[in-house]
C-alpha cells in the first residue's frame, strides 16, 4: 500500500531514522551547551 506522501514507505522509515539521529545529536549539544 503506497503511503500518502514521499512515494514509498522505505523513504519514510529512513526519514524517521534520520530524524532520530538528528534529535539525539541536538539533545547532546543541548546538554553540552548548558552544562559546561
Amino acid at each position, binding site marked *: 500500500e503506497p503511503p500518502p506522501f514521499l512515494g514509498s514507505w522505505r523513504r519514510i522509515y529512513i526519514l524517521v531514522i534520520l530524524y532520530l539521529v538528528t*534529535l539525539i545529536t541536538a539533545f547532546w549539544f543541548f546538554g553540552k551547551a*548548558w552544562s559546561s
Partner: protein
Amino acid sequence: MRPLDWAVMLLTLTAIISYGLWRARGAATTDTYLRAGKTMPWYAMALSIMATQASAITFISTTGQGYVDGMRFVQFYFGLPLAMIVVCLTAVPIFHRANVYTAYEYLEKRFDAKTRTLVSIIFLIQRGLAVGLALAAPAIVLTVLLGWPDQITTLVMGVIVITYTVLGGVKAITWTDFQQMLIMMAGLGTALIMAINLLPEGIGLTGALTVAGAAGKLNPVTTDFSWTDRYNIWSGLFGGMFLALSYFGCDQSQVQRYLTGSSITQSRLSLLFNAVAKIPMQFLILLTGTVVFAFFTFIQPPLLFHPGDMAKLKADPAYPALQQKFDKAFRQRHESAAKMVHGEPTREEFKSAQRDIDDTRKQAAKITGGNDTNYIFLHFVTNYLPPGIVGLVIAAILGAAMSVISGEVNSLATVSVIDIYKRLLRPVAEDGHYLWVSRAFTAFWGVYAVVTAQFAKNLGSLVEAVNLLGSFFYGGILGVFALAIYFPKVGANGAFIGVLAGEAAIFALHFTGAASFLWYNVAGCIVVILTGNLVSRLTARTP
C-alpha cells in the same frame, strides 16, 4: 482546588466523555464494539496510542524525575522510533491481513491453539496485575495533596471508565483518548509556560537553564555504559527498542488501538506519528521538571514534598538540625544562582550548596523511609498556579489515568471473549450473544480494576514490585512473535517450549541481579528464539 478549578475540571471531563459516547452512537456489532468496524483515521489512533501509554504516574513522576535526576530519563524512549518501524513492517500488515481481533489469535493461525492460549493467559495475568495499580496510583497522590478520599477517587474514575467502555466500546475509547491526550498536552504546555513566567524578575528560561545545567540536570544524552544502569543511550536504544517492540507489537492494549484502522496505511501513520512525537513530548515533560527545579532555587521549597513524610520528619529529634542545614544551603544556593545567572563565576559555590541540599534531603528520606518524587510537580501546581489552571492540570491527570485504564479494560475483555470464551467455551453463537458477552467482560474487568485498586493502596512499596513482575512477561511474548514472523521453520512445539524457557531465563536473570530490567526483555526474547529453533530441529530429526 478553588471553585473555578472544580468548574474547569468537571466541565473538561464531562465534555470529553460525552463527545466519546456521541461518536460511538448507533447500532453495535461485535466487530464495531471491539474493532470500531475498522473505520478509524490515523490521527484518532495516533493520540489514542499515545494516551494509552501515558499514565497519570508518567505525568507526575516524569516531571519529578526531571527535578531530582535531570533529563537522562528521556533516553528510555530512544529505541521507540526504531521499534515503530519494525511494527509497521511486520505486525501491522500481518494482523490486518489475518483479519484478527487480537494479536494472540494470529498465533493460532501460525502455530496452534495451545500457544495462543498460553500467551493469552500470560497477557491476562500481566495486564490484570497492572490495571488496578493504574487506577490507584494517581488516587493516592491526590489524597495526599488535595485531601480527596482515595476510595472515592478510584470509585468515581472507575465508574466513569466502566460507563463509556461498556456503552461505547473501542470507538468511544478512541475518541475519549483523543480528547484526553489533547487536554494532557494543554495541561502540560500551560504548566511549563506558567513555570517559566513565575520565575523571578530577570531570570527567564535562559536563567532557568543556566541554573539547571549547573546542577547537572540537563543531561539528555549520557554515553557511559553499564549493564545495571537503565538510563543511558545504549540501554535506551537497545533495551528501549525491545521494550517498545513488545509493548506496541504484542500487547493487546496497544495492538487493539491500531487494529481499528481503516487500512494498513492509516495504522502505520498512527504508529509513525508516535515515533516522531513521543521523544519531544517526554523531553518537554522533563524540561518542565527542570524549570520547576530552577523555580525552587529562588523560592524556598519544603525539605520534603510529601506532606505526610514532612509531618513524620518533624516528629524526629534530628529534624531541627536538618531543617537548619537545609535553610542555610538553600540561602547559599539562592545567592550563588542569582549571581551566576548574571554572569558572575559562582558555579562552584552553587554546586557545593546543591550537594548540601541533596545530602539533607537524602538524610530526611532515610528517616521517613519515603520517596517524594511523585509529589514535586503537583506540590508546585497546587501551591503556585492560578485558579482554573490547577483544575486543567488535575483534569489532565485524571484523564491520563482513565485513558490507560479504559485501554486495559477493553483489551482484557477482548482477549477474554475472543481468545478464551469464543475459542474454548462457546465457539458457535449469534453475533448478538458475543456482543453481550463482550459488554459483560468489559464491566467485569472494570469492576475488577476498581476492587484491586482498593487493595493496591495497602501494598506500599510492593506496587513497584507488582509493576516489575508485569514487565517480566514481555520478553517471552516478544520472542514467540519473533519466531512466528521471522522463523517459518519453527513449529508449534518449539514456540510453546520456547516461551516457557524464555520466561524461566527472565526470572533467573532477575533473581541473580545480573542486569537492569531493561535487558530482561532482550535476554528473554533471545532465549525464546534459540530454544524454539533448537526444539524444532531436534523434533524434525526424530522419525
